[in-house]
């Protein structure tokens, strides 16, 4: 009788729950069903095989694909496949021509680019100089769409561009109002992606449309579930691309992503440091990591009286034990850094033996007592933590460490709706918070990492930091293209910012991609973390 059947089913269900609760952790012993393709480990990479779709498990949902307005990582991973820029960076941060075959810099304020011929947009039309002109008109808000509110595009990236003209069908000339050493580097940003004006004319904007020249074209987008991109047949370097396409599956929960990797339902996903150690044990998975050019830092709201006192800010830096934070938050896989993280090579200052980077609780206490605080008169501060788990975990560790030096920290985890609003006001009392722990991208050029975050009045200088020497150094740094001279300026700037402790940089984490062993030909780096032109699936 069917009632009996149902009792057995529900009994099994209860048993399942019970056994799991009892056995205390399934991680080590269960060996997954063997993967059919046993890729030879350690032998030289098998010959590239064309075909197959890469299945990527992503952690968050893109909001749209307009390269000039969207900049969060979820959208970037897809846009990097659709769009290309005039020039691009190699892994060692040196610049090579992508859509531009070659370029000259006749004088400090003019750049002339010789475009590659025969490069086609996804609409099939050939890319010409006019398209480059239209692209920069759109970025600078000169098209009828007006100012499209691009995030950080105008003022810091291309503010200095006075004119963009097409000399002939395949040459474009840019003239700047003042010499800007970072201009060439800025062109590699996704904000510099060359777009197809016909698509914009037809669709109004590129949020859900594809006007690029990249190796893959935008396929289907089912919001909150998956996005597909497929190989662009007449891409100008089509022979280099062997993947048929990439499908981005949204799997919000990290444990679920790891599970999907293990069962082979996805080939590619990024995991946090703690889960990477579990992934390494799996025979059918391998881990690719690279030092990112991002860093986590804690900023002080200079409108808070207590934090205007340099001694308090330095005390905070001394009290901070970066090693514990790195162990707890990044499982030891991160490097202490200044506002120019190590990933930027020679520009980055070595902070390992700097006084302010060594934990010295007694000195911190002395400074706090000098500033008038003691056990009876403790300083209570409010701290806002950004969206990422790493920031929230770091905040908890920091709270613990600052408690030693008479500081009581009250933490609030912001969610995406409020974060940007409060972040923008962090130099004013309206923000409602004295400190904020943030995760910032230092960009690919030192000018970006210093002036954009520390230049008086510049876009990301939200904590109210202002120093004429820094402003002076920034203008000098941008004005000359002599690498050695720029390095000197930027090193001095770094020392001043570290000394000031308004924004105390903590560490720059590693980024992990866990892939199936069958994924070959993909080597991520800070400069280019989602280039799948050479990737392929070995059978």
């Amino acid at each position: 009788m069917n009632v009996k059947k149902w009792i057995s089913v529900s009994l099994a269900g209860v048993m399942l729950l019970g056994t799991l609760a009892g056995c205390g952790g399934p991680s080590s012993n269960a060996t997954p069903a063997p993967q059919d393709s046993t890729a030879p480990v350690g032998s030289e990479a098998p010959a590239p095989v064309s075909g197959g779709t890469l299945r990527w498990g992503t952690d968050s949902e893109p909001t749209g694909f307009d390269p000039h307005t969207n900049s969060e990582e979820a959208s970037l991973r897809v846009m990097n496949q659709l769009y290309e820029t005039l020039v691009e960076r190699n892994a060692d941060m040196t610049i090579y021509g992508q859509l531009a075959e070659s370029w000259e810099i006749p004088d400090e304020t003019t750049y002339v680019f010789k475009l590659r011929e025969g490069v086609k947009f996804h609409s099939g039309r050939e890319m010409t100089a006019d398209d480059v002109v239209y692209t920069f008109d759109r970025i600078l808000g000169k098209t009828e769409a007006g100012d499209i509110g691009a995030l950080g595009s105008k003022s810091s990236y291309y503010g200095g561009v006075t004119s963009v003209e097409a000399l002939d069908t395949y040459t474009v000339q840019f003239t700047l109002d003042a010499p800007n050493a970072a201009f060439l580097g800025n062109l590699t940003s996704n904000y510099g992606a060359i777009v197809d004006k016909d698509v914009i004319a037809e669709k109004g904007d590129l949020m859900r449309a594809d006007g690029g020249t990249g190796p893959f074209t935008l396929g289907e987008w089912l919001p909150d579930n998956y996005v597909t991109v497929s190989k662009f047949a007449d891409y100008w370097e089509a022979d280099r691309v062997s993947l048929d396409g990439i499908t981005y599956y949204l799997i919000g929960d990290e444990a679920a992503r790891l599970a999907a990797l293990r069962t082979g339902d996805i080939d590619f996903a990024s995991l946090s440091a703690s889960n990477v150690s579990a992934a390494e044990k799996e025979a059918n998975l391998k881990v690719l990591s690279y030092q990112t050019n991002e860093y986590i830092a804690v900023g002080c709201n200079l409108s808070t009286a207590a934090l205007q006192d340099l001694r308090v800010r330095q005390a905070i830096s001394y009290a901070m034990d970066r090693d514990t934070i790195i162990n707890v938050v990044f499982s030891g896989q991160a490097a202490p850094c200044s506002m120019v993280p190590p990933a930027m090579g020679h520009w980055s200052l070595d902070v390992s033996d700097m006084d302010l980077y060594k934990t010295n609780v007694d000195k911190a206490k002395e400074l706090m007592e000098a500033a008038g605080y003691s056990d009876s008169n403790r300083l209570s501060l409010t701290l806002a933590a950004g969206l990422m788990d790493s920031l929230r975990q770091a905040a908890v560790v920091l709270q613990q460490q600052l408690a030693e030096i008479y500081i009581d920290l009250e933490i609030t985890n912001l969610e995406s709706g409020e974060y940007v609003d409060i972040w923008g006001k962090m130099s004013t009392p309206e923000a409602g918070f004295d400190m904020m722990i943030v995760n910032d991208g230092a960009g690919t050029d030192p000018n970006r990492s210093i002036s954009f975050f520390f230049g008086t009045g510049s876009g990301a200088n939200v904590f109210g930091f202002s120093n004429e020497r820094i402003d002076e150094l920034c203008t000098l740094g941008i004005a000359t293209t002599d690498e050695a001279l720029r390095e000197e300026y930027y090193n001095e700037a770094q020392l001043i910012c570290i000394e000031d402790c308004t924004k105390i940089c903590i560490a720059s984490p590693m980024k992990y991609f866990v892939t199936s062993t069958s994924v070959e030909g993909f080597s991520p780096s800070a400069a280019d973390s989602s280039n799948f032109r050479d990737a392929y699936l070995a059978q």
Partner: protein
Amino acid sequence: MKNYILRRILQVVPVLIGISILIFAVMKMIPGDVISGILGVEATPELRAQLAAKYGLDRPYLVQYLDWIGGVLHGDFGESIRTSAPILPEILSRFKVTAELTILAAFISWIIAIPLGVLAAVKRNTLADRFVRVFALLGVSVPNFALSILLILVLSLAFSYFPPLGYVGFLEDPLRNLQIMILPAAILGVTISGSVMRMTRSSVLEVLRQDFIKTVRAKGASERVAIFRHALRNALIPIITLIGMQIGSLLGGAVIVEQIFSLPGLGQMTLTGINQRDYPVVQGCVLFIAFIYVLVNLLTDLLYAYIDPRISYD
């Protein structure tokens, strides 16, 4: 019957209006706004004003509300501020996912709950009764997100199984669709089945005490006929009322399960809308969910008349 439906709809109108006012007011009270979400760093005052004007957020609240409601009545829920995509089509396409999930879950909960409920009532105060009641309570007590994470982990480790990715509609590929939906629907169904089981048990017990059951037995009917042909049919009424009530908890549960199994449903859309302070999207979704809730309640009432001859709607 026509009068009854008309009266019920008249009763429903104030509720829907009330909901639209409430959700509109709530969205206005939420701190942080969508403009700074879009502009981010570049949020200079005149840029902010320009965008506010573009989305009509600078008009007085009453005008905004009437404009929105006017649109809704003509089937135009406006456009999402973040993705500027029209809202109603997206709500409808996503509703198909949530509807399928909740209907499947409700169906699973009934298949589990009603037979067990009847079993518990018939074999009252025996071991079976006690077991069923504990199982019902267990079902209700396990948070559905804990159960979901647990099952995903256990299935992947022990059986190296992961629910297929990439949602496909039931019509396009029924088998794959069911494979995707069965786990989340089962989890949602189990956590809901507890209350249905309890209701079935008490209403069957109630009916078994009625006089006509004794008459049926006096006519020579077997226990099976007395229970399934007579008792269960009469016990269906209170169970149907539970369907109306259940829809609320089903939709609530769906919000969570959709997030874990990343199903493109209405709950997920509402949650992202709230996070991104995308007012029209949240207002549209909540109003639509409320409309569904009210519709289901009306349908359950009409189901009464169909099942219980005593109720005749004048």
